[in-house]
């Protein structure tokens, strides 16, 4: 009922662990699969290891999650080891994820991560928390998106998905640019910029002050991004952002998504969140006489 074909690969269901949630270890990724997702995305890795920001790097609230991890990761080489280990214990679809400070570096990391048996490569140009560090935010810069997409496409052995930011008001146009530059898919969206101020300490809660907002608060924003992008591109979309229930998941498919990234929902609904969402999707589909996701993909555009 939920089987999904994405760029020629079969997913038992469209739910994929979003990048950065539950980290990078092979075992942790495999555990997410045991909890019901159809595929996994690894935390974004960079050329060199990064310790990330001091804590607090994230915090959960009633209706959103916020993080500024500072893209901590063990570097692409260590990550490749974990990814190889993962493919030793699971044959589920595996999506690598990379970020870098220049188009050239993106190409370099892409080449390196392709030493691992990944099925797809996500290109994270949209983390809202490191913008100052790397100059003009790539996610809002059409030229940068074009250059990075081309570089990664040329360096990658597997299909690539460019991950966009909901802070780009013209996200649909940016998706068009990425498609033209060779992207095989679009991941929409990363977190939206936000902040929490702790009133008693009179300070921003996150060490990085600003952070990326995810979870339920992001859902209506992400849904609109996916809807707009679907109107403009032919390549498939990994709809991501605030999906917390089976109803959210189906709404995202109706907006046009093929795969569904689920991350913060693990905070709101626990480890077994993918299983829960998949069951809820099936229940609604039965009630509504929907036999396959193909049948309803993009139907909100009719």
């Amino acid at each position: 009922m939920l089987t999904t074909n994405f760029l020629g690969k079969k997913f038992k269901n469209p739910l994929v662990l979003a990048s950065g949630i539950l980290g990078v270890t092979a075992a942790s990724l495999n555990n997410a699969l045991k909890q019901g997702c159809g595929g996994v995305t690894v935390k974004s890795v960079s050329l060199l290891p990064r310790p990330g920001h001091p804590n607090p790097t994230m915090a959960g609230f009633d209706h959103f999650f916020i993080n500024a991890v500072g893209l901590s990761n063990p570097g692409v080489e260590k990550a490749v080891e974990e990814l190889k280990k993962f493919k030793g214990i699971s044959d589920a679809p595996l999506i690598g994820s990379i970020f870098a400070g220049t188009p050239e570096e993106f190409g370099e990391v892409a080449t390196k991560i392709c030493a691992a048996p990944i099925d797809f490569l996500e290109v994270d140009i949209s983390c809202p928390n490191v913008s100052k560090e790397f100059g003009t935010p790539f996610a809002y810069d059409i030229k940068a998106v074009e250059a990075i997409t081309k570089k990664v496409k040329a360096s990658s052995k597997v299909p690539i998905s460019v991950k966009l930011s909901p802070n780009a008001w013209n996200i649909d146009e940016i998706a068009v640019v990425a498609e033209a530059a060779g992207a095989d898919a679009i991941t929409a969206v990363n977190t939206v910029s936000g902040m929490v101020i702790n009133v008693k300490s009179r300070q921003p809660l996150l060490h990085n002050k600003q952070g990326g907002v995810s979870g339920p608060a992001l859902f209506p924003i992400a849904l609109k991004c996916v809807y707009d992008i679907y109107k403009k591109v032919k390549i498939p979309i990994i709809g991501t952002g605030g999906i917390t229930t089976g109803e959210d998941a189906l709404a995202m498919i109706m907006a046009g998504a093929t795969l569904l990234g689920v991350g913060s929902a693990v905070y709101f609904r626990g480890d077994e969140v993918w299983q829960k969402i998949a069951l809820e999707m099936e229940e609604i589909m039965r009630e509504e006489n929907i036999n396959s996701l193909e049948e309803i993909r993009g139907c909100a555009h009719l």
Partner: protein
Amino acid sequence: MKDSNFLPIKKIVNETDSVKTFYFQHALGSNPGQFVMLWIPGLDQKPFSMAFDDGQTFGLTIFKRGALTEKLFSLNTGDRVGIAGPYGTSFSIKPNTHYIMVAGGYGAAPLGFLAEKFTGLPDVKIDFIAGAHDDKHLLFEERLSKISNLKLHLATDDGSKGHKGYVTDLLTPLLSTEQKSLVVTCGPELMEKKVLDICNQNNIECEVSIERYMKCGVGVCGQCAIDPLGICMCTHGPVVSKELANQLTEFGNYHRDKTGAIIKY
């Protein structure tokens, strides 16, 4: 908007020259083995186990280590810190049981908190084995001596107090009692591993507190995921059963640093 609490330090007790207990007046409602994330704005936020919680006041026993704990040691009563939690699993509280508590370092803190839960319960008997480098670093001797159903066994590396040697040396002799035994342990991982091994050999129930580098404390970031199950120690731990600990081949072998890179023990 829910937010972490920002609480004034109510009382500070110097336990040794590098260990202090910080008390906060706040209904935290925690159980022994659980932890909080303690935040000093502008600096960092790290996990600490409760050493005390009577429902109105809770305490954290903290070893001076690096930047955060050093800053904490410079604070005075009335100064405020962020407290988020309680998080994680806790030790079982069972009636009619012979508890054998094996503590190393600040592990004496959560186990002391656990032991006090049984104060005056005659059907529970506690053997509390505490170890340290020397007698100056032994924790909570006085506090533990007040628990009438608790017998304290001490071990020091240099023999300056109690048994000269490891806490684990004292464990095996205590196992041969009549009552159903439960071994609980908290301390350096290699010590814990040895305790687990002994319990396995003797077929005794055991609960272990496994500490991993933590960021979120709420099961999201995956920082504290442990091999080969990949479960998070902030939500499925820190306290795990013997059965679970036995599946965690990583335990006693390696852990991961902040970047996620493996560090062997």
